[in-house]
């Protein structure tokens, strides 16, 4: 966190100054470790075993916060009798479809629950559901639950004594029993003493009076079991009572400015603003059937109609009417998986012909960078908007494939347009970062030359397309022509007014007055709102994101600094900071309490709860939406109002996390005979060959990461001399022991090899890299910062050349944080000799097109 989020790390330092203990778990001793009380070095790719060990410690020692667990989690829920755990099936869950590499999640459900709501109704729904695994996964449907839970309804059976053998608590206990300290040592290479120290610190700092927070960089997501990493942390934090309380939580440290914003108002193929799923191309899908299938009966997703209709009104205004389902048919429909890597495959196959790259440099920044470049090389046209001529804009004339003669400039047909982009100081807008906080920034200087903001580009592109289509009678053009595309522009470059976009996002009522909360949204077309969770950011006609009242002039929650979605509440699920009766669990950690006199929830934060719903509230028969939640159902976005220790639906690769080895691992899985995630997404392609597990040809583990001095794929830093001079070239970090074993010289060159290719890097030998003992043998790990590429002022090979395209089945995120590789002294071969060099490695490892494809 100190390395990649130095500004946010100031708060960690402040907590430390107030007595907090800081534990850093990372393969490498980094700048964060230097400031931590405890640094735990573990094998990259083994976190579920480590966290699972913590869960086991909590369960075996009954160190959970029992009152919290009983009140706010699904520990007491009873699971169907036909559910089978990894304990029963040696590493897989019931419902595995080996032919389609999917799970049917039906058996994972609660006893008494109706059905998982992934589509349609009645028998038809059953039809859907039998192939639901494939359907959900292909369209990354689970991601659509980003702001809430998957559907669960019906009369769920529970056992408040937690003794029923099929209650979640008992299933959890059995499931994690094998994650012993000894197993943690075998899998992670963490000595039992160190592990015990972490267990004791985490449990001692959780409970009524104390809370523990987990912060992870998004490297946790870059595994074939990435979602399950975070699920394991969620289980642990829920058991310890660390969710919804000050100083608790699981904080996803986002990769760059407004990445949180880019999922809230998404650049993802499968989401509409506010985590409303993108509709599928089902022939008979109407607004009603869509809401029926995607919304939930209970909880705030029960109001999805209001959110969606208001969105459609914001986009299509007068053209969206009750008669035409509020232009629901104008929305594009999904036909399958259109995520990044699938799109690259479609490019190579020739079905995807055009590509916009806006502030992204996949030619060095994405996994298996060669595949990315070959995808772009098959396009008809490519538009690159960036600050400088990044590698994604020049691969056709000087990329690695030109050198290896796999591509020839004169034969390449892709038309490449490069358009200079304005930087954040040259435009106005908002950032939404880790803590869901919107902060407004203003243009400080006019963009230089022909550089323009993304807003300018998108608006004027839309304007020109609309001008070209004007007068068209083709129905296909209606969704474009009917858009409310009327933003005011200013200045000589006709920059659209960013605040006008914020006003549209906030939404207004029938009289045109700005709305102040999403609870005001209506499903009858009388309100508009561009993103329901952002509703209120322009309450009272004031840009709430632009507030900058110093923390010294307000209380510790500091609600008047920026604006946090939803409804400016700073801690989600904060109902859980009070006990079931509405009293804070502790005075030290008081955030919200029931005020019986005024019959309202009160406290420094905005309640994440209906503000006048008393703790003893019981819903009426047949109640829907938030009204169907009890006064103790703190997890208001979940259909059952509970934190899920066990996920009966919504996670495609299992209701519980299990340690699986990375797709390419030098070790076999000591926990189960199932080696890797059985439904990880594999891509069979000649430029994406996989390494066999346990191959002695690739005996080391490598992980990629960022340095403070550079930014992601380098487009914002390698061209900046003040940054480039601080980290002037690509290097690898190795231990003195590995240097001795492989004859690597400090400051000399090393070549790092995978089944895809080889890269060269300068060598930094340091004791900050430590050998580990894993399964009785010494393991060396190699650290590779991934910022470089051949262009710019500071240059070097791209670490992402090495990584395979193999994906988490929920999110389609690649496994780039734990790979097996080889390392040898000296520079890599150039030109076609490089291809032969890697082919030789593949031959020695016995790699065929079937390697790694097994389940």
């Amino acid at each position, binding site marked *: 966190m100190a390395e990649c989020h130095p500004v946010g790390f100031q708060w960690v330092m402040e907590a430390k100054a107030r007595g907090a203990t800081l534990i850093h778990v990372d393969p490498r001793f980094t700048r964060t*470790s230097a400031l931590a009380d405890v640094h735990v070095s573990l094998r990259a790719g083994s976190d579920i075993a480590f966290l699972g060990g913590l869960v086991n410690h909590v369960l075996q020692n009954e160190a959970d916060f029992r009152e919290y667990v009983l009140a706010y989690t699904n520990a007491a829920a009873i699971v169907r009798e036909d559910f089978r755990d990894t304990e029963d099936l040696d590493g897989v869950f019931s419902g595995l479809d080996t032919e389609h590499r999917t799970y049917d999640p039906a058996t994972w459900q609660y006893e008494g629950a109706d059905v998982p709501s992934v589509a349609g109704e009645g028998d038809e729904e059953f039809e859907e559901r039998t192939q639901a695994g494939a359907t959900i996964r292909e369209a990354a449907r689970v991601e659509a639950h980003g702001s809430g839970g998957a559907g669960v309804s019906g009369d769920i059976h529970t056992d408040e004594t937690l003794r029923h053998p099929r209650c979640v608590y008992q299933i959890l206990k059995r499931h994690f029993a094998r994650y012993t300290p000894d197993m943690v040592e075998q899998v992670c290479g963490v000595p039992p003493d160190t592990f015990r120290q972490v267990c004791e610190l985490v449990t001692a700092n959780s409970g009524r009076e104390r809370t523990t927070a987990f912060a992870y960089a998004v490297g946790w997501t870059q595994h074939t079991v990435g979602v399950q990493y975070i699920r394991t942390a969620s289980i642990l934090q829920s058991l310890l009572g660390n969710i919804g309380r000050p100083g608790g939580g699981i904080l996803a440290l986002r990769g760059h400015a407004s990445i949180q914003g880019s999922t809230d108002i998404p650049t993802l193929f499968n989401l509409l603003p506010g985590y409303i799923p993108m509709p599928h191309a089902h022939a008979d899908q109407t607004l009603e059937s869509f809401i029926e299938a995607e919304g939930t009966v209970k909880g705030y997703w029960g109001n999805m109609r209001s959110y969606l209709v208001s969105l459609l009104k914001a986009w299509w205004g007068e053209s969206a009417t009750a008669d035409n389902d509020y232009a629901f048919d104008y929305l594009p429909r999904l036909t399958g998986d259109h995520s990044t890597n699938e799109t690259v495959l479609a490019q190579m196959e020739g079905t995807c012909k055009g590509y916009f790259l806006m502030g992204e440099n996949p030619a060095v920044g994405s996994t298996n960078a060669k595949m990315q470049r070959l995808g772009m090389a098959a396009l008809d046209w490519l538009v690159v908007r960036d600050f400088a001529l990044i590698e994604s804009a020049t691969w056709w004339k000087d990329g690695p494939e030109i050198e290896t003669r796999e591509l020839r400039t004169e034969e390449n047909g892709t038309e490449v347009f490069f358009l200079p982009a304005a930087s954040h100081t040259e435009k106005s807008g908002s950032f939404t970062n880790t803590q869901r906080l919107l902060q407004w920034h203003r243009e400080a200087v006019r963009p230089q030359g022909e550089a323009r903001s993304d807003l300018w580009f998108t608006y004027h592109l839309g304007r020109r397309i609309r001008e070209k289509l004007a007068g068209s009678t083709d129905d296909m053009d209606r969704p474009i022509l009917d858009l409310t595309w009327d933003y005011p522009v200013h200045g000589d470059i006709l920059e659209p007014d960013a605040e006008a976009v914020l006003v549209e996002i906030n939404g207004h009522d029938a009289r045109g007055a700005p709305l102040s909360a999403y609870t005001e949204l209506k499903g009858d077309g009388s309100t508009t709102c561009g993103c329901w969770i952002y509703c209120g950011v322009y309450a009272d006609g004031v840009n709430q994101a632009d507030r900058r009242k110093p923390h010294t002039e307000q209380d510790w929650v500091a609600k008047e600094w920026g604006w946090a979605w939803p409804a400016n509440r700073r801690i989600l699920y904060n109902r859980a900071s009070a006990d079931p009766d509405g009293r804070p669990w502790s005075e030290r950690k008081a955030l919200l309490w029931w005020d019986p006199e005024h019959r309202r929830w009160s406290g420094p934060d905005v309640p994440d709860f209906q503000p006048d719903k008393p703790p003893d509230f019981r819903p009426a028969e047949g109640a829907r939406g938030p009204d169907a939640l009890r006064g103790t159902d703190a997890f208001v976005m979940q259909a059952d109002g509970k934190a899920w220790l066990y996920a009966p639906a919504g996670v495609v690769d299992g209701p519980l996390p299990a340690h699986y080895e990375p797709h390419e691992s030098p070790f076999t899985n000591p926990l189960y005979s199932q080696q890797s995630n059985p439904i990880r997404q594999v891509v069979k392609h000649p430029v994406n060959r996989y390494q066999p597990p346990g191959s002695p040809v690739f005996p080391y583990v490598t992980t990629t990461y960022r340095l403070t*001095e550079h930014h992601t794929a380098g487009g914002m830093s390698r061209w900046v001399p003040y940054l480039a001079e*601080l980290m002037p070239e690509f290097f690898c970090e190795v231990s*003195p022991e590995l240097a001795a074993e492989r004859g690597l010289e*400090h400051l000399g060159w090393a070549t790092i090899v995978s089944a895809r290719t080889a890269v060269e890097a300068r060598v930094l030998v340091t004791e900050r890299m430590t050998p580990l003992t894993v399964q009785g043998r010494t393991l060396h790990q190699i650290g590779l910062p991934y910022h470089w590429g051949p262009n710019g*002022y500071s240059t070097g090979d791209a670490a992402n050349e090495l990584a395979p395209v193999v994906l988490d089945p929920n999110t389609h995120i690649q496994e780039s944080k734990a790979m097996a590789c080889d390392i040898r002294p000296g520079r890599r071969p150039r030109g076609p000799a490089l291809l032969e060099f890697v082919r030789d490695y593949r031959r020695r490892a016995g790699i065929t097109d079937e390697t790694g494809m097994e389940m």
Partner: protein
Amino acid sequence: MSQVSPGPPRMGFFTDTSVCIGCKACEVACKEWNAIPEDGLNLTGMSLDNTEKLDANTWRHVAFIEQRKPLAFQEPGVRHTGPVPDLATPPAEAPMTPMTPGEPGDLRWLMASDVCKHCTHAACLDVCPTGALFRTEFDTVVVQADVCNGCGYCIPACPYGVIDQRKEDGRAWKCTMCYDRIGDGLQPACAKACPTESIQYGPLDELRERASERLDTMHAAGVTDARLYGDDPNDGVGGTGAFFLLLDEPEVYGLPPDPVATTRDLPAMWRHAALAAAGLVGAGVIACLRSS
């Protein structure tokens, strides 16, 4: 008669290296604000420090020091058994990042942002023949680039090796404590950019008080080798306007353990020289008398 208002208090930097996270934001902010040229691309192999030292084009420098030493009760989580090379090995020949020897398995990583000390007795200022170097109303020491004639006398005069001549223009350059910001009530760029308040700017008296409290806290926390550097008005430079909390001997950070203003003995030297000259004159007179 109107009273002469007292000037602003002496302003300074307190750099608390115990909370430095090595982000180098101070280096970049300094270069941005002062429009300092870049220094070239040079991977040094000295931990993550590719800046190496303060010079004409680097007015803030973050040192990274890897040591086989424990940091109070920190658990470093590394396991090594072999020896580490002699620290005297030149970096280019060293088999690894330079490392202070110690018990195998111990590791701490010190980071520290160095800067011009703005000495109470500033030798650079004493030797400057043009008046380009001057003491400001904030009691800081600043070079006026438009007055400096590039004579270079100040460079060997600095006991810390801070001030340096820029090859391109021949003039001497160093930290101004952002003289063009603090006069407007702004913090110096480095202090403003520092995310963890490792670099603190303020009235020197207040900073010294704060530093002494911080030192007590560190000692109480078991960091017994923590110490202040440059806070003593009785040291060889009369105390510094920029002082530090260090976690080890100053030499570890490349700082002189007992800096002395190189001009401190000048008055005495002049007296000796005058005496010697008088002696010479006397001898000459005697010689003249004798010869006559």
